[in-house]
């Protein structure tokens, strides 16, 4: 009785018209120990299918942390860092420029002062030479006296 039913189910199975429940019946039948000898030839099929289902993917599921969402976050942080670097750069750059400006002013001031001092010096030199001119007068007079003798 049982084998007749199984034979009918097998027919449907090979026409691919068996329902899920019917296919399950077939599987259960062929996976148990007592299979009618005339149907034994079909057992390897079902045995293999159930064996094939045992196979497992054994590798680790690879999840690198840089995903689309994370990448967006990464860009956000990079832009924050860039902004920070930029403000600091501008701030310190300004300080540097200011410093250089005052330095230049100081140099100009020093230059002018030196010039003034040198001018003063030159003026006094001029006075000195005028006075030396008097000395020349004296020398000339002396020469005249000598020549007179």
């Amino acid at each position, binding site marked *: 009785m049982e084998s007749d039913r199984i034979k009918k189910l097998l027919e449907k*199975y*090979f*026409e*691919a*018209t068996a329902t*899920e429940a019917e*296919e399950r019946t077939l599987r259960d039948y062929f996976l148990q120990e007592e299979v009618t000898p005339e149907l034994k*030839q*079909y*057992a*390897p*099929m079902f*045995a*293999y*299918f159930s*064996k*094939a*289902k045992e*196979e*497992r*993917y*054994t*590798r680790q*599921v*690879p*999840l*690198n942390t840089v*995903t*689309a*969402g994370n990448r967006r976050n990464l860009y956000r942080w990079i832009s924050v860092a860039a902004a920070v670097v930029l403000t600091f750069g501008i701030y310190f750059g300004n300080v540097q420029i200011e410093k250089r400006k005052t330095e230049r002013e100081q140099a100009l001031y020093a230059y002018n002062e030196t010039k003034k001092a040198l001018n003063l010096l030159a003026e006094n030199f001029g006075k000195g030479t005028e006075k030396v001119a008097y000395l020349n007068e004296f020398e000339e007079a002396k020469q005249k006296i000598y020549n007179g003798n």
Partner: protein
Amino acid sequence: MTQSEFLNVVMPFKDKLYRLAKRLLVSAEEAEDATQEILMKLWARNDMMERYKNVEAFAMTMTKNFCLDRLKSKQSGNLKLVHSNYSDESTSLQHQVEARDSVSWVEKIMEDLPEQQKMVLQLRDVEEYEFDEIAELLEMQPTAVRVALSRARKTVREKLLQKHRYGIG
């Protein structure tokens, strides 16, 4: 979606992806590579994953397409053409030597099926999907699924019977 949420979604069907990949690519190593690639692709678009109502079906279709592409690019190299010329004879010899027991013989028989029949048989008889699901996964008509399945099952039966007869004779 965080890592652990993603894993919870993916864990139940990652083996199915691997088995489908292995059915198509045959080599276990290539199948593992393919599965890894698919999982990475899924993870890369995990922010979109919530929108798919059936992630498993989507992943299976991805695997199918990925493996078929792999096979196509492999076949386009003419190395394969040369090889397949004599692979028939050598594999049948190999079959006789290796596949002593009929169970692993079924595996060898399935290797020789056309890709579509392989996939249909895998999804129905190994993974026990419903016909509608298979049709959706493989982007086929439901009737075409039944036809392919019937052909695949009959081919396996025929070759299995042949083997039995040779085994006796």
